[in-house]
Structures are given as structure tokens and as C-alpha cells.
């Protein structure tokens, strides 16, 4: 049997890429430079697209290819370019300052991964065949770490990035549970992400203009 048809190899490749996605998520938590952060997000989305394409290949489900291609276009190319331009325009040079310090954040992310695994365990039926049965665990971990990163950051732009990586988790969960939602739903979600990224980008820019900072803790003050 050729490796391109062997389910077991497909399973390994998907597991490996899911692991990479998880590692990149933790790398995002430990990253201090916003441009590197954006690029890690792009890399993570790239692996996500590859996972979707692999699942499409082994399950003979052509409509997932469209989801993979959309991920590639929207999250790997459009959104990072949009954000890098925003960073350039706002001339952000300072480092990201998380609320909890970095070593502790990384350890907390590790703990959240464990929680993700424990939660996913109850969904897993032994003996059920299928590709990447552990992807749900990775997806829940991405979700939890994304939430944690959002809470942990002060600046609006990094919170938006965290929100998008959280959305990556959602996409992974959807793909691993259903092997692809109906195409119209997928399209809706991608359009949503793109619009959200643009709107949030503008919002972040406005916050910066009005308050001379992206620090959301300053939004308590009223400005005319």
C-alpha cells in the first residue's frame, strides 16, 4: 500500500502537525515581540490548513479543501499582512508586557493543555476508527490557552491575536469532530474572521489615536 493511502501514516502526520500547532500556541504565550507573534500566528494557521488538507485527502472530502484554501488565504496571508501594516503604521516598538510573568504563563499554558486532554478524554470512544482522534484535545487546549492569553495581555492588538488563535482552536475542533461542516457555514465563519480582523484593526487604531496607547486598562477614562 502506498503511503498516500495508508490511514495509519495519515494519522501520524496529522498528530504531528496538531502537536506543532500546540507548540506554536505556547510559543505565542512566551513571545515578547509583536511582529514575531504575528508570524507565529501565520505559521500556526499554515499547519492548520495542512491538517485540513490532509483530512480532506484521506477522507475523500473535497469540500474540506476549500476550507483549507480559505484558511491559507485568510489567516496565513491576509490577516498577518493586515496586522503587520497596522503595526508599521502605529510604530509599535515596545515589547508585549503580559500581566503574569512569562515563565509562569508558559507553565500555566502547560497546565491548561493538561485540562484540555482531561476534558477531551470523556469525548473519546475507544475503538472508534478515524483520523487524528486526539485532535479534539489539542483543539480544547488551543481554546483554553487562547482565552488565557487574552486575559493575560494588556494591549488591544495582542488580545485580538489571541482571539484569532482561539478561533484556530474552534476550527480544529470543528474539523476533528465533523470532518468538515457544510460549506456555507465554513464560508460564513471565514468571512466573519476577516471582517472581525478588519473591524478590530480599525478599533485598535482608534483606541490608539484617542488614548495614545493600546493599553485597555486606560479605557476607564472618558474622552470626548
Amino acid at each position, binding site marked *: 500500500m502506498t503511503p498516500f493511502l495508508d490511514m495509519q501514516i495519515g494519522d*501520524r502526520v496529522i498528530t*504531528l502537525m*496538531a*502537536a506543532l500547532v500546540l507548540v506554536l500556541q505556547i510559543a505565542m504565550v512566551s513571545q515578547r515581540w509583536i511582529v514575531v507573534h504575528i508570524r507565529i500566528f501565520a505559521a500556526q494557521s499554515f499547519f492548520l490548513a495542512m491538517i485540513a488538507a490532509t483530512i480532506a485527502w484521506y477522507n475523500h472530502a473535497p469540500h474540506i479543501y476549500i476550507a483549507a484554501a480559505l484558511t491559507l488565504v485568510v489567516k496565513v496571508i491576509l490577516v498577518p499582512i493586515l496586522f503587520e501594516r497596522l503595526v508599521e503604521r502605529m510604530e509599535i516598538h515596545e515589547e508585549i508586557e503580559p500581566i503574569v510573568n512569562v*515563565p509562569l504563563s508558559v507553565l500555566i499554558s502547560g497546565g491548561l*493543555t493538561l485540562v484540555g486532554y482531561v476534558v477531551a478524554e470523556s469525548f473519546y470512544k475507544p475503538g472508534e476508527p478515524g483520523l487524528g482522534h486526539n485532535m479534539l484535545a489539542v483543539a480544547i487546549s488551543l481554546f483554553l490557552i487562547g482565552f488565557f492569553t487574552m486575559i493575560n495581555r494588556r494591549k488591544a492588538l495582542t488580545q485580538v491575536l489571541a482571539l484569532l488563535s482561539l478561533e484556530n482552536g474552534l476550527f480544529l475542533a470543528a474539523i476533528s469532530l465533523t470532518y468538515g461542516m457544510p460549506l456555507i457555514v465554513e464560508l460564513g465563519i471565514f468571512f466573519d474572521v476577516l471582517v472581525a480582523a478588519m473591524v478590530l484593526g480599525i478599533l485598535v487604531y482608534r483606541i490608539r489615536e484617542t488614548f495614545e496607547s493600546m493599553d485597555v486598562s486606560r479605557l476607564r477614562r472618558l474622552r470626548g
Partner: protein
Amino acid sequence: MTGQIIGRILESLAQLCLLLAIAPLVTGVIRALKARMQTRRGPGILQPYRDLYKLFRKGMVIPETASWIFAATPWIVFFSTVLAGLMIPMVAAEAPLGLFGGVLAVIYLLGLGRFFLALSGLDTGSSFGGLGSSREMTISALAEPAMMLAIFTVAIGAGSTSLTQIAGAAIGQNWRFLAPAQMFAFAALALVLIAETGRIPVDNPDTHLELTMIHEAMILEYSGPNLALVEWAASIKQLVLMTLLINCFWPIGLQPTWFGFGALQGIAWLLAKLLFLSCAIVLIETVNAKMRLFRVPELLAVAFTLGSLALISTFLF
């Protein structure tokens, strides 16, 4: 029975010679490659041998305040490191002194050496020595848990902490290196390798700048043959850790025994893999700047998290 013992002794001698001979070479190759990457000419790859030869012929200066610990440390460090080197599989999957202990013995023999080095740094009463010891201990206290978690992951995969069995299990499975647990463990161990051998994001091995040095600060008071022993032990330790990394995760070319024509092939494979790993280290050293000391725990926290993820995913994937 006697034949077996003699065979074991011969194996140990062969590995001992290999260990002592190529450890300075690895250091030299890394330095030369790094110089090339930075478009310098740099010293030749044989420079560490010349340095050792020169140091062994010099007299030594011993500080007045030093006690017996200062004199004994180079020997303890040297022999514990060599002993650790004999417990790992280098050319053959069977480690020559494997029956005296597995991977835990290797880690703690290296730990023993480090402990005495830190003591000798404090022993002379110089402020730099104490500074170096305190930094070295801080880093190793953080690196050791990460290393243990990564090693345990590998040991669970092989069902034993004996390095002979770990290397044997690694030979058997073709696709194993693609498993997430192995990948996490490899990444964690690679980060620990960088921290433990004092490579650039953590420590700069080429500098004697007071503010940043870690390893060099501890051995500042040593001179002559003592310094040669400490330096030699440091390069052997680097070789041991590199060999541990490549033979646990990437055992291509590992021979079943030391005897026969296969040994030459095994040595060739070992050198090729070491060269590859050296290139990777040089690349990391060149593209990174040294971290501030207070940032080092962040790197090691990443290593620790990767190690624990590795351990979690052995049970779940």
C-alpha cells in the same frame, strides 16, 4: 565469562580513547564553523588540542585561601565526566559500563561534577567565583527538571532507563521519531543541551566579560594543568550530552557491538551526526543574541513545559 569481561574492558578502553580524542575536536569544529559563519577566519579546528598541550606544560598558581576542594575539583570533574561518557552508547548500542547504571547515573555523575565545580568557585573566596557558582546553580536547578521529564518520556517509550535498551528500542521503530511525544522530548532536551553546555542564548563560551560569564566565572582561578583538566572535562561533557541527544532520538548507524568492521562504520556515522548537530548549534549561536540572565528562566520554562507535554502525550497520543 572471562571472555565477556575482557570484551567489556576492551570496549570501555576503545570508547575512552574515542571520548578523550574527539571531545576537543568537537569544540574546535564548533568554534571554526562559528568563525566562518561570522565571516572571521578564526583558529583552526585543532586549536583546542594545542591549548590543552600548552596548559599541561605550564606551572600553576593556587590561591592562598584555597582548601583541598580547589585541588581535588579538576580531578573529580574530569573523572565523573569520563565515567558518564562510558555509560552512554556512542558507537555500539551496548554502553560499555551500562551495567553500572542507566541514564539517571549519567545525569547525576554530570551533576556531581557540576556540584564540585560550584564548590571550588566558592572555595577561593573571590567574588567572581561565587557569582559564577550562584548563576550556574540557578540555571542547572531549572534545567534539570526539564531534562528529567524529557528523559523519562524516552525511558517510558523504551520501558527501561537503561541507555542500552533505550538505544535498542530507538533502532527498532522507524516512525517513532515522528510521534509528538518524541518530538517534544527532543525539543526539550535540545534546549537543555544549550543551557547545560553554556551555549549562546544562555551563556557565551568565548567571553571573559565579568557581567555575563557563568561557566568561565567559576573556573577563573584555575591555571595550568588544572585548567586544562577542567576545560577538557567541559568539552567531554558537551560531547556526552550531544551523543545522548543524537543516539536517543536518531540512532541511525548505531552498531550492535564494538567489534569487527562495523565499529569503523559506527564511528563514521557518529562523527557525521555530531557534525550535523554542531552545525545546528552554530546556526543557533549565530542567529541569536545572548539573553539577559533574568530571561534565561523563560527559556527553561519553555523547556520544562515541552518536557511535561512530552510526558503527557506519551500517555494520550
